[in-house]
């Protein structure tokens, strides 16, 4: 047990080292683009107001009527802030696939070495899984840091007359994407974490199916993904199918979803273990 844990830590640290360049690039991109956005979006608003007032000899009141007050939400809702989040999500999704395929299709076939390590092959699986999660949480943390840095910048650029007075937390609560990244209710947090973990497990399983059965595996993998999705989404469509909108309370639905996602996750783990131990080929 101690030996397995030790191997897991070593492999995770090794994988983390391999992720670091990619992760630092994503972190850098997020911070730079966000900061540019926190400066550019309020400045553009202020410029518009100033230009409007100069060209029309308008008062501040008239400018406010035309352009409205600027809130931190406006900054959050811009490409400058949403863009890096989309880049981060896409990047980590890409890396989740790349983390496996690079072992086979890189310049050297590292899959040989990894599969011949005298440790349980699931240790490889878990090290890759943990590293993806570390990457995701690191990017979320950077986004959070950027929010706390951005809020005073935006407040400093927008003068009080044109500011809406929306607090940082209020702006986050108002934005669906940020509510998704920083869920405030523990139950919502649980659902998002479980959904993310299960999605990753299913994705890893599909990759292992493809690595085990080649072209045939692509079709089996698509079937596995469709089945997993159908199982998880089934309770959401059940009220419609039975034409009864009062079938579940939302709290019941949440529990059912958590249970079904856990079932899909556990099944994916078992399938992955079988494939990586018995079917995978270099």
């Amino acid at each position, binding site marked *: 047990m101690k030996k397995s844990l030790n191997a897991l830590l070593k492999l995770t640290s090794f994988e983390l080292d391999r992720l670091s360049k990619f992760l630092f690039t994503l972190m850098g991109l997020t911070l730079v683009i966000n900061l540019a956005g926190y400066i550019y979006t309020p400045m553009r608003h202020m410029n518009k107001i100033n230009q409007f007032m100069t060209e029309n000899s308008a008062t501040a009141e008239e400018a406010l009527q035309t352009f409205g007050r600027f809130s931190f939400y406006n900054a959050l809702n811009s490409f400058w802030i949403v863009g890096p989040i989309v880049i981060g999500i896409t990047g980590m999704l890409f890396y989740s696939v790349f983390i496996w395929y690079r072992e086979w299709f890189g310049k*050297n*076939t590292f899959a*040989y070495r990894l599969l011949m*390590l*005298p440790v349980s092959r699931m240790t490889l699986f878990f090290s890759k899984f943990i590293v993806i999660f570390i990457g995701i949480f690191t990017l979320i943390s950077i986004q959070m840091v950027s929010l706390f840095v951005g809020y005073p910048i935006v407040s400093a650029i927008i003068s009080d007359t044109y500011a809406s007075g929306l607090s940082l937390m209020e702006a986050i609560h108002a934005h669906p994407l940020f509510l998704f990244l920083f869920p405030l209710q523990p139950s919502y947090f649980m659902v998002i974490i479980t959904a993310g973990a299960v999605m990753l497990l299913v994705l890893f399983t599909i990759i292992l199916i493809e690595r*085990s059965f080649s072209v045939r595996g692509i079709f089996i993998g698509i079937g596995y993904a469709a089945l997993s999705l159908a199982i998880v989404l089934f309770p959401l469509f059940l009220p419609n199918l039975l034409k009864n909108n009062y079938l579940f309370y939302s709290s019941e639905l949440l529990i059912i979803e958590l249970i079904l996602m856990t079932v899909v996750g556990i099944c994916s783990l078992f399938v992955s273990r079988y494939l990586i131990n018995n079917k995978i*080929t*270099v």
Partner: protein
Amino acid sequence: MIELRDVQKSYGRKKVLDGITFTANKGDITCLVGVNGVGKTTILNAIMNLTPIKKGDILIDGEKMTTELYNKVAFIPDVAIMLPGMTVGETMDFMKDYYDTWNGKRAKDIVRFFRLNTTDKLSELSKGNQAKVNLLMGLALDVDYVLMDEPFSGIDIFTREQITEVFSSRLVEDRGVLITTHEIVDIEHLIDKVVLLDNGRIYKEFNAEEMRETEGKSVVDVMREVYNG
């Protein structure tokens, strides 16, 4: 002893291994020979559980292959298997980190023997030196069996001579070696047992020395008879 019993494997409809049964003993050098595509590499991959078999059994000292047994059997493939960005020294550190059987002293001896530089990056090494690094990783392990896939493939004559020296050195002493090679002439005098493959089957299995003494034929002579009809 490495033991294969009625091993079968197919790629689609094509049978690659069709009832392969043989043993490779500890202390012997067993050579799998055959033309390209006859299933030699597949056999080594199957022994190391790097490709699944359809039917049959593969046993290492009577046990089925498990990840723990990677401390008992080393595989030296004919492709580079470490990350190209690593140096030779980092490769050795990696092996030391994961293998209980890594013998640091022997690793240093092999580095000296092959005149490798531990600060060289793998991506900058020639094909011959890449092969030497692969040998380093396999031979520095205190294992009972070493599997080698085409260790002479695509390398110059001097490197080949150096690698040939390995077979008569202490590096393989007392171990069971299972090797596939086309360059049979280089190591023919060192081989104990030959397993001749044809179309995924064992065509002939013989002791190289006995064959020389009783029939006056070299391994290459026997191969010519089989493959040239």
